[in-house]
């Protein structure tokens, strides 16, 4: 069964088209990361899943039912962490969770849920006194009521410190392991990389890419950039490097050579330089970071014709583990 199915969805507001001809499918049990810069249409899409906003054209189906006719029934089986919500200042944290339990006709223990999201001991305080991060946790506790089949999380990490964001990821993982489908939006890439089976990138209301993180990385280009500190390299040495298979370009930058090459050609490059009698003092490889990847899709041309290359491979052993989600390119340094 499909958890979320959007077909030809379009949403026009008075002065702007927020979403245009969006087709999106999320399978049961999948963890799907919905990426895009601010204003790309992520929240509008999520609001259409929740019946807060109605599409101008197209159909939105969630958990096998039509949102337009079965919204309440769908939301009974869905947990939602909305974006830009506020709490009921006068009601306590526990009352909030109790309200969600009552609303869903469930029998969860509110304190157990508060405990799970890290709010144990804060249940009696009125939610108006909560910090931004605590409100986010509280809404997550409400979303987890009644073990939903689908979790829709809109920018779940906003307001959370790094430790809170990590706990959020762990809860997402646990919910996915339980069998829930998780659909979450983010503009923070490390979130997506760490927990998602598949990501979709939205730009100007259109899905410009949809794949596993690894798949996207390959689509942008599997090339790496090798920076070699080799002061003594002469034109001959450079020519020999340039002649190697898998090397697409060599440029000199002061004492450094910048080599664009395939990942498996790196050792050949170093060997060729040493063979030409050049002392290699140091070298770095630089992999396209997630940030580069994201920018390539949301600003650059990488998106051309890629939207249909749907090839989820959640079992890819290389995925996620090797990347450093820094703003700077992930770098590895090796002394020679």
């Amino acid at each position: 069964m499909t958890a979320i199915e959007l077909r030809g969805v379009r949403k026009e507001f008075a002065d702007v088209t927020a979403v245009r001809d969006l087709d999106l499918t999320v399978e049961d049990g999948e963890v799907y990361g919905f990426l895009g810069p601010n204003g790309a249409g992520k929240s509008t899409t999520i609001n259409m899943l929740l019946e807060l906003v109605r599409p101008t054209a197209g159909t939105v189906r969630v958990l096998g039912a039509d949102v337009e006719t079965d919204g309440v029934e769908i939301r009974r089986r869905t947990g939602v962490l909305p974006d830009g919500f506020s709490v009921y200042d006068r009601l306590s944290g526990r009352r909030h969770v109790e309200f969600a339990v009552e609303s869903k006709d469930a029998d969860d223990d509110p304190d157990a849920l508060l405990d799970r999201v890290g709010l144990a001991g804060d249940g009696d305080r009125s939610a108006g006194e909560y910090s931004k991060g605590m409100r986010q946790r509280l809404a997550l506790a409400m979303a987890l009521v009644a073990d939903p089949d689908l979790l829709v999380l809109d920018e779940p990490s906003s307001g959370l410190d790094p430790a809170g964001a990590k706990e959020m990821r762990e809860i997402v993982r646990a919910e996915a392991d339980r069998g829930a489908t998780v659909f979450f939006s983010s503009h923070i890439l490390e979130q997506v990389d760490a927990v998602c089976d598949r990501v979709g990138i939205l730009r100007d209301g259109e899905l410009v890419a949809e794949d596993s993180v690894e798949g996207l990385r390959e689509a942008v280009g599997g090339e790496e950039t090798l920076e070699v500190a080799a002061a003594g390299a002469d034109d001959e040495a450079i020519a020999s490097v340039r002649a190697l298979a898998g090397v697409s370009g060599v440029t000199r930058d002061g004492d450094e050579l910048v080599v664009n090459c395939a990942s498996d050609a790196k050792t050949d490059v170093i060997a060729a330089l040493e063979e030409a009698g050049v002392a290699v003092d140091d070298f770095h490889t630089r992999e396209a970071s997630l940030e580069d990847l994201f920018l390539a899709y949301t600003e650059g041309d990488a998106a051309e014709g890629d939207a249909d290359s749907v090839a989820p491979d959640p079992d890819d052993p290389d995925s996620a583990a090797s990347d450093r989600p820094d703003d700077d390119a992930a770098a590895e340094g090796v002394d020679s």
Partner: protein
Amino acid sequence: MSLPAVARKDFRETVQSRGMIALIALFSLLVSLLAFIVRPTAQNEQFATEALLSFFVGPVLVTYLVPLVGVVVGYSAVSGERESGSLKLLLSLPHSRADVVFGKVVGRGAALALAVFAGFLLPAAVLVVIPVTFNAGAFLGYTVFAAALGVVFVAISVGCSAAVSTQLRALIGSIGVYVLFVLLWGLLTGRLLDAVPGSVVDALPASARQIEVFLRVSNPTTGVVEVLSNAFLAEQLFSGETASQQLSAAAMLVFWTLAPPLAGLLKFDADDL
């Protein structure tokens, strides 16, 4: 059907507000003050419960204050949540928008009724204890009418609140209804009747007297204060010569409780939030 959950949530929220205590205190104070004015004197051992109600509590407290409090309790119900963003939390749960609007009418209406009962009955408890003859039944019954009128204005304000996108607009709309029904009704309808030439009235299939009665029962305030509660104090509720008038007034109360939230819901249901 999750209306009760919304109603309980809103009831709690309203009752826990600081304004609630202030309201009960204000009602208590005013009822006490008015009771003091009609206190038994040496010549008259009888405590004039009916006089207290029909000359003081009714025209002052119930006519002006209770509807105003209804407006204050109701106007922010939906628009306030819409502005703050808590509506997103609310509609993420399995509530239909009808559950939200009518749940709020029920929850906030109940909270207002509680305030009216507490505010009216606390001072009355003193009257029961001290050795004067006090018609507790009449007082209690009258409180029910006061609460009902308050609930009608809560419903009207919640309807306004659902129909517009900001609290300010909801407040303007609700106050507008208050001004029309409470302050200007007599003036406007009087003018209307005067302005219409007799020949036109004669042409209508109703007498001038019937039109006047119709206008009186159409307005929830006059319906409660002038028609229903007075009949109740005269021990002629739904009987006697004004029985049909009273029935109309009661029917209009039901209408004003249901129609504004329903109209608000129609608009609210079609909106993107």
